[in-house]
């Protein structure tokens, strides 16, 4: 009884709690870190070190007018942000935080993650389209084309890992890294996956869907209140998710000496999240044609070659 019902429920609560609190903490962390790198203070008034700023923002956002523009497509306008959040949160179901600590230990975990990431496109595309605003529409079609393009080789980039571990199950992938983390034999895969991850979470330098200097706020121009909040939280949960997946696939997941597995997993994820924020602080946004050329002409052939070469090496040496 306890093993079959209570344990899964506890893990579910933990996974959801982790997803939401890290997203909230990440908003604070990003603002503070950006401030450090830009030589200013950042939010430091509400609570110790400004930690309660996120709480204050949350309370505020709940009391904002829940505005649905009369020119918008009402049902789609409401569903779009929910769709994004649901798809990102669902991916957390397959993330193994530690041995056995996973909501659903699917044997196709990696495919499930890729599928859920693809579903996220709908949130952006529908949100921008239903707003009936030209900037939002531009943002939405940019987002769709960008995420579709980068999705193609995001899946291919991790196939090297699948070849090496012989499984789609994320726990088995982590266990297969006992000898060596896959970031060494699969360095090309790691780089391609990270770039695709940046583009999938539409973060700077790949934030063209919302490029605020060109498109106001891109696909969520017409959104306010909690619906904007859902897009916002969805983005930060996406960052955490991509960082977690990178850790699982390339940096040995929960593995590490001395400290308990969960701590190692959290530490590695934290470092990668900081890399995400550092990228935002240091890189400029490319032009849209450059972005698409880079995806189709450089990364896609590279990802395909990586799969072939990895397969050949595995067969030659074993």
């Amino acid at each position, binding site marked *: 009884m306890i093993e079959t019902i209570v*344990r899964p429920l506890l893990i579910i609560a933990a996974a959801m709690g982790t997803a939401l609190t890290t997203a909230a903490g990440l908003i604070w962390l990003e603002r503070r870190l950006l401030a450090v790198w830009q030589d200013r203070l950042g939010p430091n008034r509400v609570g110790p070190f400004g930690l309660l700023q996120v709480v204050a923002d949350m309370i505020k956002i709940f009391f904002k007018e829940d505005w649905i523009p009369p020119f918008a497509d009402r049902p789609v306008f409401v569903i779009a942000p929910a769709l994004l959040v649901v798809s990102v949160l669902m991916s957390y179901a397959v993330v193994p935080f530690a041995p056995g600590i996973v*909501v659903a230990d699917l044997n196709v975990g990696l495919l499930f993650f890729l599928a859920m990431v693809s579903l996220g496109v709908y949130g952006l595309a529908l949100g921008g389209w239903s707003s009936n605003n030209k900037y939002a529409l531009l943002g939405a079609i940019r987002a769709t084309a960008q995420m579709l393009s980068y999705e193609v080789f995001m899946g291919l980039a991790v196939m090297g890992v699948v070849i090496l571990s012989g499984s789609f199950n994320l726990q088995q992938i982590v266990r297969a890294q006992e000898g060596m983390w896959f970031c060494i034999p699969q360095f090309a895969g790691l780089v391609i996956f990270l770039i695709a991850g940046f583009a999938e979470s539409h973060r700077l330098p790949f934030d063209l869907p919302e490029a605020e200097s060109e498109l106001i706020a891109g696909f969520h121009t017409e959104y306010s209140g909690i619906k904007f909040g859902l897009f916002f939280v969805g983005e930060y949960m996406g960052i955490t998710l991509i960082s977690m997946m990178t850790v699982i696939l390339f940096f040995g997941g929960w593995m590490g000496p001395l400290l308990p597995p969960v701590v190692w997993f959290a530490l590695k994820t934290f470092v990668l999240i900081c890399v995400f924020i550092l990228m935002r602080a240091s890189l400029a946004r490319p032009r849209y044609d450059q972005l698409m050329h880079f995806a189709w002409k450089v990364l896609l052939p590279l990802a395909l070659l990586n799969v072939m070469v990895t397969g050949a090496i595995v067969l030659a040496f074993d």
Partner: protein
Amino acid sequence: MPMQPLPMAEANALSPWQPGVFSLSIYFAAVLVLTIVLLALATWLGERRPSVEKLRAYESGIIPTGTARLRLPVPFFMVAIFFLIFDVEGAYIFSWAVACYDLGWKGWSQISFFIAVLILGLIYIWRKGGLEWGPTFKKR
């Protein structure tokens, strides 16, 4: 592997998904409830202050003209088509990758031929100008 036998798994309802289907469905329900509660709470708590200015789409303060149901530029359509081609191809590569070790060199040479054909296809759409964007393409 520390996998607990779950009720759904014992019932053998959805065999390939056994290990987590119970947790997964509860998790999905919880996620749905959470999202709906958030949306409903904001609708309930939020103030309402109607104003004429809010009835207009925000386009940088310029009065919007016409509808935003515009036709999309062709390159976006082509990206969608290429995505279909290359992502479906991805599914074949996925299924080979997981069995790469068992399939051996025979499987490898077949998938290499498959990938080579795909790269040829990529080169073809590249040379045809399918990957070009914006003004550089028009000049030619």
